[in-house]
């Protein structure tokens, strides 16, 4: 039962990262251009799906609370200010989709909210992961680091890294969904973003080596972990190829594979800890009565339904976004 809920949590988190990852990325790229036609095309490429993407964040949150209350309570209270900043960012970018078309004069305001909100949300998610990798100060099952205990150069580095990563994912999404200028711009950006991301990974790795992060030991204990970087490298090569040939569909899947590989690497190097290296899955898990109650309703029926529904939504909106949003 515990394993089932670990699986649901992992699936929901990975889905969130991949799905909201690209639309947050598009949001950041949106801030890089001032051209109204480009902006509309970019919004049009994510408008149909962003709302559903964000649902997975809520699913992650509530599954964490119901199935692993200890982790929910510890993480959210530890990252107090970042969580609120992220929520504010997500709200601002969410309403911008609708409100920017309601006004000419104040459009700049919603646009700034859209790009800024996306950037803040992406940065904070990366920073959170960075702080977790480095290890949160936890004693006796409670966070003891104070208001800014998560803040470190490494965490900030990871925040910037995830922004780059999401931008890459977003650029690949734009290549897939758009035509014309936006597609050309995205193609120009992809190699730069990829190189940036590569540099970031090298720096992170070097930092981890120099700082003797506990997580590195895992790699020597579990050599099979190297499968994931290998998958990542393979995907990168295919990415480079498909970008050079200007094939619109594969880049997104390749970057998604890289993300999934990175996610797998982290998940397995954390295992069996949920908050490395202080709280394990078994310590955090709710008792059987709670997990079983969740399983027989939302676990076995609703969750598969949600996966199916997400798949259908993306199928309905497959292909190029042929028109701009018509509603203004």
């Amino acid at each position, binding site marked *: 039962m515990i394993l089932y809920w670990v699986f649901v949590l992992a699936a929901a988190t990975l889905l969130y990262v991949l799905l909201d990852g690209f639309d947050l990325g598009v949001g950041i790229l949106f801030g890089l251009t001032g051209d109204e036609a480009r902006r509309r095309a970019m919004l049009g490429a994510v408008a149909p799906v962003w*709302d559903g993407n964000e649902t997975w964040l*809520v699913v992650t949150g*509530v599954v964490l609370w119901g*199935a692993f*209350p200890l982790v929910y*309570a510890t993480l959210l209270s530890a990252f107090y200010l970042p969580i609120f900043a992220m929520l*504010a960012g997500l709200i601002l970018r969410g309403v911008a989709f*609708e409100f920017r078309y309601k006004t000419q004069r104040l459009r700049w305001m919603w646009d700034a909210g859209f790009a800024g909100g996306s950037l803040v949300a992406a940065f904070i998610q990366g920073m959170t992961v960075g702080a977790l990798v480095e290890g949160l100060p936890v004693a006796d099952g409670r966070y003891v680091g104070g208001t800014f205990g998560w803040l470190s150069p490494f965490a900030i580095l990871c925040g910037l890294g995830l922004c780059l990563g999401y931008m890459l994912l977003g650029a690949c999404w734009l290549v897939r969904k758009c035509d014309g200028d936006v597609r050309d711009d995205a193609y120009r950006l992809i190699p730069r973003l990829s190189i940036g991301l590569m540099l970031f990974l090298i720096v992170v790795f070097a930092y981890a080596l120099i700082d003797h992060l506990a997580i590195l030991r895992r790699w020597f204990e579990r050599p099979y972990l190297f499968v994931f970087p290998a998958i990542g490298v393979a995907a990168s090569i295919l990415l480079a190829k498909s970008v050079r040939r200007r094939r619109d569909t594969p880049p997104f899947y390749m970057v998604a594979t890289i993300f999934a590989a990175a996610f797998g690497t982290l998940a397995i190097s954390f295992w069996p800890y949920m908050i490395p290296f202080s709280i394990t899955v078994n310590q955090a898990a*709710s008792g059987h009565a709670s997990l079983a109650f969740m399983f027989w309703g939302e676990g076995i029926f609703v969750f598969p339904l949600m996966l199916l529904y997400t798949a259908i939504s993306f199928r309905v909106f497959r292909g190029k976004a042929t028109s701009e949003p018509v509603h203004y």
Partner: protein
Amino acid sequence: MELTALLLSRLQFAFTISFHIIFPSFSIGVAAWLIVLEALYLATGRPAYRQVFEFWLRIFGVIFGLGVVTGVVMAFEFGTNWSELSRRTGEIQGVLISYETFTAFALEASFFGILVFGRSRVRPWFYLFSTAMVSLGTSLSAFWIMANNSWMQVPLGYAIENGSYVPADWAAIIFSPVLWVRFPHMLIASYLTGAFCVAATGAWYLLREEFTAEGQIMLRMGLYLATVLVPLQLFFGHLTGDYVHRYQPVKFAAIEGRWHDEQPASEVLFGFPDATSETNHYAISVPILGSLIGSLSFDSKEVGLTDFPPRDRPPVLIPFLSFRIMVGCGLVLLALAWVGSYLSLRRRLECNRLLLWATFFSFPLPFIAILTGWFTAEVGRQPWTVYGVLRTSEAVTPFLTVCAALVSLLLFCSLYFFLFAFGTYYVHRLLRVGPVGRLVRPPIDALPIRPMSVSVVTPRPVNLGGQP
């Protein structure tokens, strides 16, 4: 009052949840209203019903969207500010809240898609069924939220293991008698909110002398529904009072403003409770009525606040006043609904401008009643977060600093006021445009799970008379 992280967290939770509750209570009501309209349209084939349906579907989109956005914050706030609560009760509360998210997503999101897209693609009965499913989804969401809150009011079916509260009997939690009184109370409150907003919109159109056919449908149906529902709501309100009387005597005493034991007890109608002198100033009371309300008898003894040590008493002023405001709103709405329905049956309603204006201005009352009702329930539960089990001061995140709590509170206050201003403007514009023009045709790239996308209207090209 000293500014502590505890106080700020309470303020923040109160503010964000009060802001949030406005939208779901409205959307539950409107969803139910949509079923009625669609059923009537199927039965009679009158196009006006269809017009009104499409119009309220657009409003539903905006309200539903704002409800979702503000609800996301709630899902995280338990962990950020109330980490001790969420750690200890997660195995019960976390599970209930997770059901809320899952059922909401499954029913509302998927069937809402059919409401937006499906009119031409599915059979009429299935379209009606989808409308019903959206409504069921919003009601189920409310059910899980009420299950969670009722467990905090009167915790049942739990056991304590290593300082955590774990479920011992899910049936006791889900079929709690408290839940099955409070859930209908909230549900009817939502339906009344819908009914009065609909009636007020109808009255507005009649006063402006445009869309009179649609306006009449809205006004009459809203008032008729309220005529039946307000008395029912008073009945469930009474039952809710009974559970408070039985399980939370100190809250009951605070609501009644009763400081000392009385036999038979009088009922304070108005007054101003003062906790330092433990009396009510300027009180107007009716003898014996207190016993009648509390225990349905003429000579029962009713307990007073001074039976409880001060550290176990809730603040008295807020529950006392907010309860009276709630009941006051309810009585005004009752009068309005009955007089309005009577006039309507006599076919004199549409020309009675006074009543039309009164109905128009009544639309904030259900919202005020819902908010003050919740203030009564939640402030009255203090100083407990889980009544009798976990104190609020023990539930708060222990290491939260005043500074951090202040930053988040100010951030969300400003953000919500900002959104509220624009959201209101937006709904106002939808109402101004009225039930005309094209029927809802979704933009090609709109998606079910993006509710606000239906709310888009093309402003009318010509000015149709009625200046604002």
